[in-house]
């Protein structure tokens, strides 16, 4: 008798346990939101963290962050998935893919998403260049996420060795003068740069309120003509061609290959993405002292603003309304001041709102790491003009290749700056016209 009752007792306990364990599953089937991104290692872990924080903050939606490879790989995967009608809800696309996404007819604009779900975000609090790059007609199409902008870095030890004061150059004339002194003082490279086209052509044109392409850099319609072979572009490249010849400017390759030279302590002055701060902090530790400053200005040209790079989050069409509600909630979460400040502090990317900047100021983050503020200061000091909203180019990747190809010719002294830029423009115009023809 005892045996029987203990057996049935344990069965009952088992049944109750199973029911209790299953209860959450029954009661709360979380709606899953799929997010494809291209950030790996340390940055990828931050992505996972923010997704986990969102998931823990509520119990209706679950964001699944999946690393899909590099930016081009992630974009390719998204396109393939969309065509197979299996697109993720959110995909991170780099700035090069902006026009591709806008023309695709496959996206759900962010401003529309938030409106449809009655969630308000203060768009006006976004930092100027961040907002304008991804907006059309004042409305935001993709959610700003990891943005950076070029800034100037300098090697304080090399400066000291060359007898220069600890004051970074503010104009390109100063860059030339200081770089010459640095080389004379024994530096292997006076000035160099990462992302040659992005920094020296794209950003510099915007920084000096010079047009890069027609149709307001592609914001007013598909761009079909580049304008970089004007007086500003020519002056910029002539300066650097001279620098290469005289030895104070060293061209160290495309993409961010040159960052290895800066991190190795070779270069006195360097321009590259603000996102490099994380890396250089680690690589230069114990080796050399360094500082940051806003980008140098070219005398004789007006003041514009620097443009951003990095990536944003796009929402793909084809999902259900209740899932989009979750995406909207997730974006609202991401845009909160607290999360913005956390993200910017831990990753080194730009905080996207002024409120976040104030919070970081107040919490002493900028006090501890003033370099993080350089990019913000630079952007807040600039003027937003039609020429400095950003760039929207079809086949942007190929255009950049064409420009860098000619820049390399100019730096090597094979062509004059004017000739090189004319050739770059001719080829790029073909590339742009091809894209425009597809969407007539």
């Amino acid at each position, binding site marked *: 008798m005892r045996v029987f009752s203990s057996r049935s007792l344990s069965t009952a306990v088992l049944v109750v346990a199973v029911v209790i364990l299953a209860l959450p599953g029954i009661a709360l089937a979380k709606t899953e939101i799929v997010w494809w991104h291209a950030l790996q290692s340390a940055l990828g872990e931050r992505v996972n963290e923010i997704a986990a924080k969102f998931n823990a903050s509520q119990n209706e939606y679950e964001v699944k962050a999946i690393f899909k490879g590099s930016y081009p790989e992630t974009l*390719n995967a998204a396109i393939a998935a969309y065509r197979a009608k299996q697109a993720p809800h959110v995909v991170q696309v780099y700035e090069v893919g902006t026009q591709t996404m806008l023309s695709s007819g496959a996206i759900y604009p962010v401003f529309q998403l938030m409106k449809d779900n009655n969630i308000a975000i203060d768009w006006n609090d976004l930092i100027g260049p961040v907002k304008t790059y991804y907006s059309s007609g004042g409305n935001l199409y993709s959610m700003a996420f990891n943005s950076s902008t070029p800034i100037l870095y300098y090697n304080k030890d090399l400066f000291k060795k060359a007898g220069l004061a600890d004051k970074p150059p503010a104009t390109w004339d100063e860059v030339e003068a200081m770089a010459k002194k640095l080389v004379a003082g024994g530096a292997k490279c006076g000035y160099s740069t990462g992302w040659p086209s992005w920094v020296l052509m794209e950003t510099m044109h915007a920084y000096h309120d010079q047009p890069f392409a027609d149709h307001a850099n592609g914001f007013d319609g598909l761009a079909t003509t580049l304008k970089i072979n004007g007086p500003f572009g020519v002056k910029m490249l002539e300066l650097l061609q001279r620098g290469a010849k005289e030895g104070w400017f060293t061209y160290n390759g*495309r993409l961010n290959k040159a960052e290895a030279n800066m991190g190795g302590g070779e270069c006195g002055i360097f321009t590259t993405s603000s996102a490099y701060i994380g890396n250089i902090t680690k690589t230069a530790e114990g080796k050399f002292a360094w500082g940051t400053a806003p980008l140098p200005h070219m005398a004789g040209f007006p003041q514009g603003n620097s443009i951003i790079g990095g990536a944003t989050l796009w929402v793909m069409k084809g999902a259900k309304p209740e899932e989009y509600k979750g995406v909207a909630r997730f974006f609202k979460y991401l845009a909160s001041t607290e999360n913005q400040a956390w993200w910017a502090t831990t990753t080194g990317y730009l905080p996207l709102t002024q409120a976040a900047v104030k919070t970081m100021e107040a919490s002493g983050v900028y006090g501890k790491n003033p370099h993080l503020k350089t990019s913000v200061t630079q952007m807040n000091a600039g003027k937003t003009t039609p020429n400095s909203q950003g760039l929207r180019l079809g086949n942007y990747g190929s255009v950049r290749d064409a420009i860098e190809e000619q820049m390399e010719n100019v730096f090597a002294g094979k062509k004059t700056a004017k000739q090189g830029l004319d050739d770059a423009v001719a080829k790029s115009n073909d590339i742009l016209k091809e894209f425009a023809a597809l969407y007539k």
Partner: protein
Amino acid sequence: MKRTVFRNRWLPYALVAPQVAITVVFFYWPALDSVRLSLYRASPFGDRLIFVGWGNFARLFNDAAYVRSAMTSVVFAFFVTVIGLALALVLAALANAKIRGLGVYRSLLLWPYGIAPAIAGILWLFIFHPSYGVLPYVLSFVTAYQFNWFLKGWVAMTLIIVAAIWKQFGYNLAFYLAGLQGIETSVLEAASVDGAGPIRRFLAITFPLLSPVTFFLFTLNMTFAFFDTFGLVHSVTQGGPGDATSILVYKAWKDGFENLQLGISAAQSVVLMAVVIGLTAFQFRFAEKRVNY
């Protein structure tokens, strides 16, 4: 010779069905689609298409970057093939003696065949590394020149050429050794009695007798250098610096998968198809002649 065949209506079809199915779906369909796509300009999402006929090809052949890429491929294939074969031939000739353990040597020389070109590239990348590689270090005792493959196109080319030759070397050597062992020593002895020195003997007798092997290895190495070295370039130089090592295969992939220019990439694929057909035709025409030997 009359062959015995089995009489069965449906069985042969069933037997070839898997191969035919896979061949049609994964070879012919995409290949024909490549040809079709090469006649269009396509949007990245593939939703917009404009027929341009020869437009993509005209654009390719007028594009300095593409022509450069073709030159790079030719130079790369040439050096990998010629240097690889020459080294293997010379070493095989010098090593061609009746020695014991040839089989052991052969297996000790063939194993790099099992290494993927991409991995071979990574190994050599480290050896060539401008900051701490063995090779620049050793060379620094000889000259002050900076062998920085990040910056200098020709150094990067040398790097991938060396990695490719290294991987193929044992293979070339093995075939030459086999070829040499198959040459009748009596012919060579007769020549030496006639007073021909070793070099003369080699040039007048050995080399011509080896020409089938040479031609076979030639087309094989060329095909390898054109088509199987994508992994090497992608993992080591990514076509750089600039586009100094952007071989045709790499450029076709990059334009299609990174720059999302589907039509242009397909046109490049079609050009590559022409190259393969040429190489294959060349090889088979020569294989016919081989039978006479």
